């Protein structure tokens, strides 16, 4: 790879915009594609562009056979983000684990005593009210939102805005009883049961977690499952359909 192209790929990856790197595995020719803009020495034909679009949609890398050789397509989708409402104890291990998993983490808490940089080094802290913060940060389909304050006046506005967004995961810490009352309050704000079904509450996979770090594990496990399991299932279904059509052809 040309160092100039490598730096551009790095910048593209950091920018958070969708980009793709196409490489001819035989010749080593490469191009970086951002939207309709192409940089590099690999000609991007319609066939290659169609494959890139498919990869972006499926959020996976793939390769495509052409007359000039096999072209590998590596996509740079925007970074995964996690927005945590509440700079409470549990947020400390959760922020660290999420960062380790590749998420850009923002902790939202208007209470400055909680959201101090001493308690949360290396994490972006947003001290706006949760609904304002959510409106500014605009959770998208690569964003997980987790509320952990236990305080309705902080959690509820955050959850309400999350429900109006495309966030792929919404989780709320609290017991089954707490969650029931939370749903009642959200219902009063006009949310339907179907809409509220997006909220994972009580948050996390049932691991019998006790300590804050263990609870963070159960949350990260559930977030990962929600993100990856459907993609894995679709892959398995495509493979099964391919096998079936091959069998039918024989």
């Amino acid at each position, binding site marked *: *790879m040309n160092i100039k192209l*490598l730096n551009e790929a790095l910048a593209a990856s950091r920018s958070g915009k969708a980009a793709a790197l196409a490489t001819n*595995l035989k010749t080593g020719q490469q191009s970086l594609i951002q939207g309709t803009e192409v940089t590099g020495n690999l000609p991007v034909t319609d066939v290659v562009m169609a494959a890139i679009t498919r990869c972006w949609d499926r959020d996976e890398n793939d390769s495509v056979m052409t007359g000039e050789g096999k072209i590998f397509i590596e996509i740079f989708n925007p*970074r995964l983000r996690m927005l945590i409402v509440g700079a409470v104890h549990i947020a400390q291990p959760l922020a660290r684990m999420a960062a380790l998993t590749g998420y850009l983490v923002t902790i939202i808490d208007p209470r400055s005593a909680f959201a101090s940089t001493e308690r949360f080094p290396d994490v972006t802290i947003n001290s706006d009210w949760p609904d304002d913060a959510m409106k500014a940060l605009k959770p998208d389909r690569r964003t997980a939102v987790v509320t952990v304050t236990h305080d309705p006046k902080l959690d509820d506005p955050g959850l309400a805005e999350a429900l109006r967004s495309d966030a792929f995961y919404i989780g709320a810490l609290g017991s089954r009883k707490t969650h029931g009352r939370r749903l009642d309050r959200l219902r009063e704000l006009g949310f339907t049961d179907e809409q509220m079904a997006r909220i994972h509450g009580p948050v996390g996979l049932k691991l019998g977690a006790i300590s804050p770090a263990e609870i963070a594990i159960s949350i990260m496990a559930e977030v990962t499952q929600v993100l990856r399991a459907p993609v894995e299932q679709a892959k398995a279904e495509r493979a099964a359909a391919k096998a079936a059509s091959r069998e039918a052809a024989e």
Partner: protein
Amino acid sequence: MESAGDNEQILGQAAKWRGEGKGVALATVVSTWGSSPRPSGSKLVIADDGAFLGSVSGGCVEGAVIEEGLKAIKDGQVRVLSFGVTDERAWEVGLACGGKIDVFVEPVA
């Protein structure tokens, strides 16, 4: 897809080593079959002083990939390496998991 964070770190390291005047090669998993340990897009960066960062497998084929990376730095050529249990060198650098992977190795010039 490989998590963007990991690959950003590896591309960043490649740029840094290159900036320091080192010879650098990049290895990327470009195909996987069966139960391969690292997904397509996983990267490993190799410097000509033998330093490396990242992974393309669970550790079973890294040695061979680094060796080819050092060759790529010297001859400036790209190559595709295939690893799997059917490989004749399987006993040496095969994947214990029974999967199969192709790794693209390229010099960073």
